[in-house]
């Protein structure tokens, strides 16, 4: 009798001890699921595009800049943050116009290097905008700061169905990113403004991962 009473008491203790946290866990999950909104359509499409940019961090772009044709290769790199043991992602740009520049991709600290020509700094920013790392950073920041930035569109003579993102202004450059609707792969970037002659358009091609430069 004494033993069964103790067993019953232990059963009561254990069952309450388990049920209280389980009920509260279920309640916590339900409150989040019921109250917080799910990601909207623009965010979902942007995430797919970002996944593609993340998978293809290096790219080659063919563009026209101030009446001259330029071919630019963007390659990911890492650089040490001065005064700390940390590294941060950086971007290496190799352009047919004769520049080789490494610029940091940290959104709070860049760009840090200017090109040689008088108009070089502006042109560097223009070229940088076409790099996957920079594009991804701009896209992520734009989606996080505004509600609907994505529109349905068609591109080219074949009227390829695409999504168009109007990104946040980047150093006075107005940028639109075009993403293929079929596989969410970014393939075209148009850039306007900041005193550049005409409108620039990057045709983006992914590069193989081999041969990435290191610090």
């Amino acid at each position, binding site marked *: 009798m004494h033993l069964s009473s103790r067993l019953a008491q232990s059963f009561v203790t254990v069952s309450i*001890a388990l049920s*209280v946290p389980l009920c509260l*866990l279920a309640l916590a*999950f339900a409150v989040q699921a019921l109250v917080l909104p799910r990601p909207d359509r623009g965010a979902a499409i942007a995430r797919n595009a970002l996944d593609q940019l*993340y998978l293809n961090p290096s790219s080659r772009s063919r563009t026209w800049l101030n009446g001259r044709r330029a071919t630019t290769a963007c390659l990911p790199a890492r650089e040490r943050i001065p005064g700390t043991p940390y590294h941060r992602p950086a971007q290496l740009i190799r352009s047919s116009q004769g520049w080789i520049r490494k610029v940091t991709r940290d959104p709070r600290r860049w760009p840090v290097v200017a090109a040689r020509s008088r108009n070089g700094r502006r042109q560097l920013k223009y070229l940088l905008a076409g790099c996957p790392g920079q594009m991804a950073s701009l896209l992520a920041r734009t989606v996080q700061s505004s509600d609907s930035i994505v529109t349905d569109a068609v591109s080219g003579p074949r009227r390829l169905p695409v999504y168009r993102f109007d990104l946040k202004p980047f150093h006075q450059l107005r940028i639109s990113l075009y993403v293929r609707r079929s596989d969410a792969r970014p393939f075209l970037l148009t850039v306007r403004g900041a005193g550049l002659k005409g409108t620039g358009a990057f045709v983006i091609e992914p590069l193989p991962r081999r041969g990435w430069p290191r610090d």
Partner: protein
Amino acid sequence: MTDPRVRVGGVARETRLPEARAAIRSRGSPSLLLRLLDTRAKALGLFGWWALSRLVVISSAVAATQLGSPRKPELRNPLRLLSYWDGAWYHLTAARGYLFFPGFQNNAAFFPGYPLLLRGLHAIAPMPFYVYSTLASSLMLLAAMFVFAALSKEVIGEESAYRAARWLAIFPISYVFSMAYPQALLLLLVTGFGLALVRNRFLLAAFLVASATLVRPEGALLVIPALGAALSRWRTLDARTRGLALGAVATGPMVLAAYPLYLQWALGRWDAWFDAERMWRRSFRLRGAAFAIRHLHGQIAAIPYVAIDAAALAVYLLLLVMALRTSIPRAWIVFGAAIVLLPLESGTVQSLARFGLIILPVYWVLALIGRNRRLDRSLTLLSLVLLAGATATLPYTFP
């Protein structure tokens, strides 16, 4: 006989309290009325300290925005300044839910409890985010001060309790309690949990642990004081209350899983929280604390304001060591040590000043030091000056 009504500044020893209470009971209703008036005066005093401290914070924010050179034009509004930094992430979460972008800073690093509250408040009274977040945080600090005073009466005695509650408002980092940060809400939940624990209200304690864990991961560490209370009273509890006490112990670690479960359901990535934390260069590592201490100089060279966090860490640890020499329950001291030492394992001291704001023994020790009135006045004045100075750094660095 010493009457507690006429004691000024807490000079009388607390060991006389039971005796004094008995005297009050024997005298009947007039003394009770006076006692109520005494309590009301203390409550008004607490309210006054809260108002003074918030005035210091707001005026320092105004001075910082007008005299300094904020990087963004919108930071010229002091209320916007108080809802800046991580406040923007909480606002984003409240407005649009979690938007997870792997490899970039995103709001999955921030727990949902505070955005849930903001969303609820916005549904009731639609106002600009920066207005109601600052208002809500400041009011939650006021509520936490009263709950903490009630808890402190049980832990360090009535004489020091109001002084301890006063320290919540005037502590140099307490400007965070008026920001769009979850610390004020977390403080209210932690103090409420402590009070529920000393009154054997274990079901309420479990609910408050669950809420605190949903606000910040530190909430799960309340398992330590819950375990301490359950073990110390185990023999005096019946079977049902034992179950509730164990339930309160298990709730923190179990509810910690609610957030990754939600992320899996909403975003398809249960580990989005950890991924996002890495973007702030925070991830637990072996010997992370040693790394943080060894590279402290480099961190301060890169971000000078990290010195505030390093200094706060030293103060917290010193006060926790001093707490060992008092009657403050050891479980609360271990909880406090875990609050500052666990984040140190992520390899940086950054934000430790803010994380440590919920270490209750810090305020209890400061209140006990304050029995010396001259020292109390000096520390209070110094703290208010430091509070104003620390608030003025807001346009330049995050807390």
